[in-house]
């Protein structure tokens, strides 16, 4: 392959501008990141230093045409210890916006983005679908709780909490939505969901088109502001949380008129203030916790899920390494959202599977529905006898009704 160094390539002009993390010119080729990529030594997988070097030397098309930028899970595991403070996702993600890269964007991602921009929901979920689904869920809920007030309120202006689900909760994982509704029911405060408000994800983030990401953020933020809620409560979704809590203000140029909270934070708060009580015997055995990269390393939320878990199980088992050094589940960076990547995801997930195996637990919790799906699949693929749940779902199960 031949390539020519370019000192002022278009891509370079996008980088080295922000004060944090895309200072690729400073890379000193130490190779630390290369040794740390979450892919470990499976075949394929990105080589972070090569990505940085291509960008640094202005080899835009080489980079844009490389499989690496789409294989990268944007997990930043590699650059945690970068001596120059370079943050990998800022290179890989931005490279995805190069023209040559856009051409290579996985079709599923392209479609998802288009649908979301057009309909406000990545699956094109319509208002009718929403009403139908909620009605169905409500029937179940009211039966189960034997209380008509257990139903999910919709379109309640001025509610204290607006719950923003992961689209999967309105489709393949409806049980999770029921669990969340039980939590809200237990909080006993006004809350609502909305048909304009069904998708916590933001695939614009995956492709680093600031405009797309911003549009998607506004779809959510403006709708929530219309409804006039005090708090927007996000479903367990790593990148959705990162986008709304960490990046939104910067991108839309103002603070949203509400607080952005994760369902975990709210639940923990209610527990600590005695609003709800959880059964300490709910899981009388050790449960391991997986840090979603977007929630943990990128957003700094490490303790809330652990604290919540600690209330309801015998012991929170750590996977090694964890927190800042946690290993990606193998589904990050839009890998999970691309149906062509299933096979590769089993390779990129091997490190995680090894960790889980080494932890020797039967039950694994996480705080992101994407991680949840990937973990469920790798556990099966690697034949580990481990059950996977989200922390909030486990908490919902453990509610003790007075």
């Amino acid at each position, binding site marked *: 392959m031949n390539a020519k160094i370019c*000192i002022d390539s278009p891509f370079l002009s996008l980088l080295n501008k922000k004060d944090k993390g895309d200072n690729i010119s400073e890379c000193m*080729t130490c190779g630390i990141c290369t040794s740390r990529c979450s892919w*470990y030594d499976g075949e394929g997988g990105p080589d972070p230093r090569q990505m940085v070097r291509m960008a640094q030397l202005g080899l835009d098309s080489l980079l844009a045409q490389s499989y690496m930028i789409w294989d990268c899970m944007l997990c930043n595991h590699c650059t945690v210890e970068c001596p120059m403070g370079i943050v990998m996702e800022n290179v890989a993600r931005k490279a995805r916006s190069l023209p040559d890269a856009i051409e290579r964007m996985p079709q599923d991602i392209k479609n998802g983005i288009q649908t979301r921009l057009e309909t406000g929901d990545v699956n094109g979920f319509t208002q009718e679908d929403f009403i139908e689904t909620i009605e169905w869920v409500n029937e179940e809920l009211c039966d189960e709780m034997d209380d008509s007030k257990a139903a999910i309120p919709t379109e309640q202006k001025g509610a204290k909490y607006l719950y923003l689900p992961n689209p999967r909760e309105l489709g393949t994982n409806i049980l999770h939505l029921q669990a969340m509704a039980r939590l809200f029911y237990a909080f006993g405060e006004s809350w609502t969901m909305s048909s304009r408000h069904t998708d916590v994800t933001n695939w614009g983030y995956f492709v680093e088109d600031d405009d797309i990401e911003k549009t998607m953020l506004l779809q959510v933020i403006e709708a929530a502001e219309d409804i006039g809620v005090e708090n927007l409560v996000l479903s367990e979704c790593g990148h959705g949380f990162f986008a709304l809590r960490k990046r939104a203000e910067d991108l839309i140029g103002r603070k949203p008129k509400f607080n952005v909270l994760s369902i975990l934070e709210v639940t923990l708060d209610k527990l600590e203030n005695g609003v709800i009580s959880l059964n300490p015997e709910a899981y009388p055995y050790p449960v391991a916790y997986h840090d979603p990269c977007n929630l943990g390393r990128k957003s700094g939320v490490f303790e809330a899920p652990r604290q919540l878990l600690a209330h309801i199980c015998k012991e929170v088992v750590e996977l090694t390494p964890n927190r800042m050094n946690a290993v990606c589940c193998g589904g990050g960076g839009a890998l999970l959202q691309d149906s062509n990547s299933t096979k590769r995801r089993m390779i990129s997930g091997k490190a995680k599977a090894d960790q889980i195996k080494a932890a020797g637990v039967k039950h694994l919790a996480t705080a992101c529905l994407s991680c949840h799906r990937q973990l469920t699949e790798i556990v099966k693929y690697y034949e580990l006898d481990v059950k996977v749940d989200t922390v909030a779902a486990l908490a919902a199960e453990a509610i003790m009704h007075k």
Partner: protein
Amino acid sequence: MNKSTPSVLVVGGGIAGMAAAKTLDDFGVSVHLVEKREYLGGKAFDWACMATGECRNCGACLSAELADQMNHLKHATIHLKSSINGIKKNNDGFGTTLNSESSAVISTNAVLLANGMTPFDASRLPELGYGVYDQVITTADLNNLLKREGLKEILPDTTSPAIAFIQCVGSRNRELCRDYCSQVCCKTALRQANKILHNIPEAQITVFHIDLQIIGKEFRTQAEYVKARVNLFQGVPAKILSDREQGKLTVIHEDPETGARVARHFDLIVLSVGIGPSLQVIEIAKQLDIKPDTWGFLSSGALLPSGVYAAGVTQGPTDILTARDQGIIAAHKIIQDFNILSKTKHNSTIAVLGESKDSGMICHALSKEGWLVVRLDSGNHQAPEISGVTSFYSVSLRSVNGTVGQYDLLFTAKGYEHNIKAASIIVVGDAQMVLYSGLNDSDKIKSLSQFVDVFEKTPAKVPKTVAFWLDRQKQEWKDHARTCLHLATALAEKGQTAIVIMEKMLVHGLKGQKLYDDARHKGVRFLRVSNPAQINVISDNGHLVLEMNEATLPGVRLSAECDLLVLPEAVNPPASAPEISHFLRQQCDSEGFLQSANVRHRFVGSPRRGIFFLGSCHDETDEVDIAREINAVKASLEALTTSNIRTEPLPAINENKCARCLTCYRICPHAAVTIKGNYKPVIVTDACFGCGICVSHCPAEAISAVCELDSDTSGITASKTVIFACERSGELALKSAMNMEMFSNKTARIIKVPCAGRIGEAMMIQQLLNGAKRVIIAACHEGNCRSVSGSRLAAARAKLIVEDTGLQDNSIRHYSVAANEPVKIAKIVSAADSGKEI
């Protein structure tokens, strides 16, 4: 000597502190030496000898030697197990209290901070598994294993264990606020790798590095040898995994051929941890109101108040030899600042030899201090006059006779013959700068000096894109690498484009890494090329195109366009080196530069008193080194003239017995024998080191002995072992073996000798005749002997006797033992006791 001799508090009994204390003591300055451990020597004292058949010039053994010398200081009080409780500046100096002694305040006029170093705590990087996996250790741990000869304990039972070194752990890292190169760890790792290979020849050793720092003549030549025997990979793994199934450690690394990430498995991984200042410095600095630099060093940037001095790692990361030098220089500075030297006493002449820009600097520095300087310049470019300096140009040496204090130089200058007398000779020849060859496109290729000329005089003529190509023929001379770094950064600042092609970047000195970081920050592009032969230079349409295989992008043939290519000159030994080495009777090093690499005489000295080397004639030196070398030369000159008290026994030639064979003249490694009149050899006391080599070699037995122990039979022990031990190596090792209770002097009789070269055949055989079963000669490693050939001569003699007499192989045997090898000497002796062989 000044009437009011000052007193100095030296904090830290490591190599820098001890060297300073010794120097101060020599000048009659009273010293309080404070050391927190119960023995002197500092970290270097714990360091294992790296010799592998020959000395590897690490300098660690010098610490043991200095520690021993501390027992003989005349004006020093040594406070062991002590650290500073409080220190206050007062009117005439400093008042210090120690934690060990009651409330007595120690008053001194000056304070020298030589607190030593702290190794980086590798557990701060949890992903390396230090403290988690038993097989992940640091270079310091490995050192301990080597020192007690216990490496095999942690290796699997195989003849070819796989061992990796990971460089730069806790160094060169801005995020850890340690963005400086620790300077020592590349040397340490390669020396340790070499040592392991010496002990386990089939070991598979891998060194992961960022840019190997191979700097300094002590190290450069050996490094090539080690590099050929280990696998070198650019890029440092920052994550170590344990592979339970294989029982090995795994790291992931980019395969330089395929560019794919591959797993490599090792039995042992050694982390080359960086060094930082001692934590105590911060505490003391606070009390003295000193601001350390961002890393905690008292570097030159951190202004020290009057009366406070710093040396060793306290002022920046340094190796053992440099720390020793800094200790001596700091002591000398104290001596100067307190006017201990009388200004008028220098009426001796110093001859400065060689053509060099550096010669002006040393001439200036010496004349300023009242020395009479004669500059003998082999070039014909008249340099600006310096007051107090007499200059000769177009000088060609004819002969150099005499000894320290009275060298006699015969030379011609501009065709006329001259003769001068000089107390000392300083050689300042320039290395030869050889222009690039093999590339033709003269208007687009410039040598570094040509480019500097353009850059300085006609900056407008510097084109838009300039490429600097380093490491083209061999590793770049460090001063050239630094100059290119500065130039490239300057160009980038002006909005021009600078490209640097290199195999590795040298980041020497405390600021080296920051300069490199700054260059990248400003946009200089660095390209790594591991095989310069693959670089193609093509002329294309008014540009040059450089095509290369870039090391971080395997599989990509990279091209870069430039308007001008700068090729630093290759650096060769000075043309005059053979001639000068001949006239001065001095060895060159293996690359042909002046001065051997022997650590006992480095950096500026030689085995011959009063002969010094400075600048590029003997080593790659930059401005900082030159400044340090000038100070070191000045300190040595003062020491020669001021503290000339010789206490050791020195030999003399008995005129009546002397056969005029002149063996002594030929064999004296210090050139201390001169010939007077009618072939009459005379030993010049000032020049003599008292090694006794002449004594044992004089066929007429005309030279009085330096030690008289030949016929003494007392003390032959039950084991009937006699050890001749060099007082600089073997004997010190035996002493520490005794301290460690690995050896008792009841086991063997020890005969201390000033140098193994003193031991004649007769002495060796006499011990057997006296009833000894076995004679051991414990002396310096090859290349470490202060008297150059002493240890080697003894070894040859022992071998010869055994061969000639048909004695048992082990009845007389020479072993190389450094002062810091107590375990080795103890093992040798106990093997002798049990009749076994080592």
